[in-house]
Every structure is written in structure tokens, then in C-alpha cells.
């Protein structure tokens, strides 16, 4: 693998993880589009172009992992709020487990984790 290709791999990883980050942000409360986008943008390196989050939200809606509703706002036009469905919640739980195992495995191989801290799986 050439050095330049790790950038591409990172892009792939981001793309895969971002949708679950959205679901995670919705775990405890409903949020509207702009809020979600800005929360994600605040995480270093997660989002390169804020606009690409909107097609992702549309897909989550289409896949029925989230539902939306409109709510009036004092400072402007009505806002579209996003709400996690049961299917979305399950997807999030599944991913959280998968991610932890994956992350721990890779960290161990990269030497970032102390082997002794984690019993054999």
C-alpha cells in the first residue's frame, strides 16, 4: 500500500462511522439538522464537508433508522428535527459493540493497547 492510500482509507473509515455518530448524537435527545451537523463538525477530522451530512440524513430517514418532525422556532422558519427509531437504536447498539471490538483489536496490533489489560476474547 502506498503512503497516499492511507488518506483514502481514512476517508472510507469516516464514511462508515459518521452515520453511527449521527445515531449516537440522537440517542438521548432529538436534534435538528443544523445542530447535528455542527456537533459532528466539532469533532476533529470527522467531517470534511458539512453539506455531505444532509444526504446522509436523508438516507437514514429512508432506511427508517430515524424519523423526522417539524417544529416551530422563535428565531426563524420551522426546523426539521430528527428522532431515533427502534431500528436505529438497535443499529447503534450493534455498531457500538462491533466498533469496540474492532478498535481494541486494531489498537492491540498497532501496539497502542497494553495486552495485559484485556483478557483474551
Amino acid at each position, binding site marked *: 500500500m502506498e503512503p497516499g492510500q492511507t488518506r483514502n482509507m481514512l476517508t472510507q473509515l469516516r464514511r462508515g462511522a459518521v452515520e453511527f455518530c449521527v445515531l449516537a448524537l440522537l440517542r438521548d435527545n432529538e436534534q435538528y*439538522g*443544523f445542530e447535528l*451537523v455542527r456537533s459532528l*463538525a466539532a469533532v476533529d477530522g470527522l467531517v*470534511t*464537508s*458539512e*453539506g*455531505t451530512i*444532509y*444526504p*446522509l*440524513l*436523508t*438516507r437514514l430517514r429512508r432506511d427508517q433508522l430515524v424519523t423526522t418532525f417539524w417544529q416551530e422556532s422563535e*428565531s*426563524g*422558519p420551522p*426546523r*426539521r428535527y430528527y428522532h431515533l427509531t427502534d431500528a436505529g437504536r438497535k443499529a447503534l447498539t450493534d455498531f457500538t459493540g462491533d466498533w469496540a471490538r474492532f478498535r481494541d483489536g486494531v489498537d492491540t496490533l498497532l501496539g497502542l493497547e497494553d495486552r495485559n489489560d484485556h483478557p483474551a476474547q
Partner: protein
Amino acid sequence: MTTLHSDPLVADYLHRLDGAAGGLPAQQRAELVAEIRAHIDEALRATHSTGSTGEAAVRNVLKRLGRPEEIMDAAVERTDPPERRQVGGREVVALLALLIPFMGWLIGSVLVLLSPAWTTRERRIGLALPLVVLLFSVVVSLGAPASTALGPLETSLIFALGFAGGPTAAIYLAWRLRSASR
């Protein structure tokens, strides 16, 4: 879909976004442009309240959003069929059905419409072919007796060719299955 906006930079951006979205279904395109527009307005309201206004603020918001082409890439890749088409029994039956006139065209059309293996555009072409070809040949063969150039044998041949639309559609759709979706 209105891409007009009081700010010329924003209006230009929305216009480019709308233009780059040609590959999307109309409703989806309109929705995406509306969402981006709402985002811009919300972001500008936020910067306004912190005292930062003017062109620099607008440029910053648009820069954070990213290029319209990037946003469109993200939208398109999420709506088209996956790169590798899933071809199964249903698709084979659909193609075979299209070989049989009328009843077969009907059944084949329904199966093609239900199958995710083809893009919308491919489905439209495939389903229109049998009807268009038949219609064309009927029109020509009905009009033929009036002209002296074609005898009854030729007219019958043209009429028979009308049924070539089904096999042509089947071949076209089968050929599309062998290529990547995009």
C-alpha cells in the same frame, strides 16, 4: 426549486448546487437544496448574533459546507443501486418473459420494475422498447397499402418486426446487467 437568495454569493452557491444535482430525482434534488439553504440561513443567523457579518461570514459558511459537487457526490452514491448488481432468478424470468409478446411483456415489465438490478433510466428504456417498436410497425404497416412501394409480404414483415421490441428490450436489459451500475 428557487435558488434565489438575498445574498448573491449564497444565490450563486445554491444555483451551482441545483445544477450539479442533475442526476437526482427532482423531489430529492429540491429537498436537498432546501435543506442546504436552511442550513445557510441558520448559520448566518448564528454568526449575526455573535456580531460577525458580511461577506467573510458568508464565505466561511459556504466553505464549511463544501463544494456543491462534493455534496452531490454524497447524494448520488447513496441513491443509486449498488455497484455490483444482484442478479437472481427473478431477473432471468423477467428477461425470458419479455420474449413473449403482450402477456410476457406485461409480466416481464412488472418484474423489471420490481427488481433493484436496473436503474430507473434502464427500466424506462427497456419497458418502452416493446411498445414503441410495436406502435411504430403498426403505424407503418397500416399506412403501407396506400404506397405502391410495399406489397403485402413486405407489410406483413414490417408488422412481424413489431414484435422484435420484446427481444430487443430483453437483450438491452441483459447487456446492462453485465456492466457496473455506474
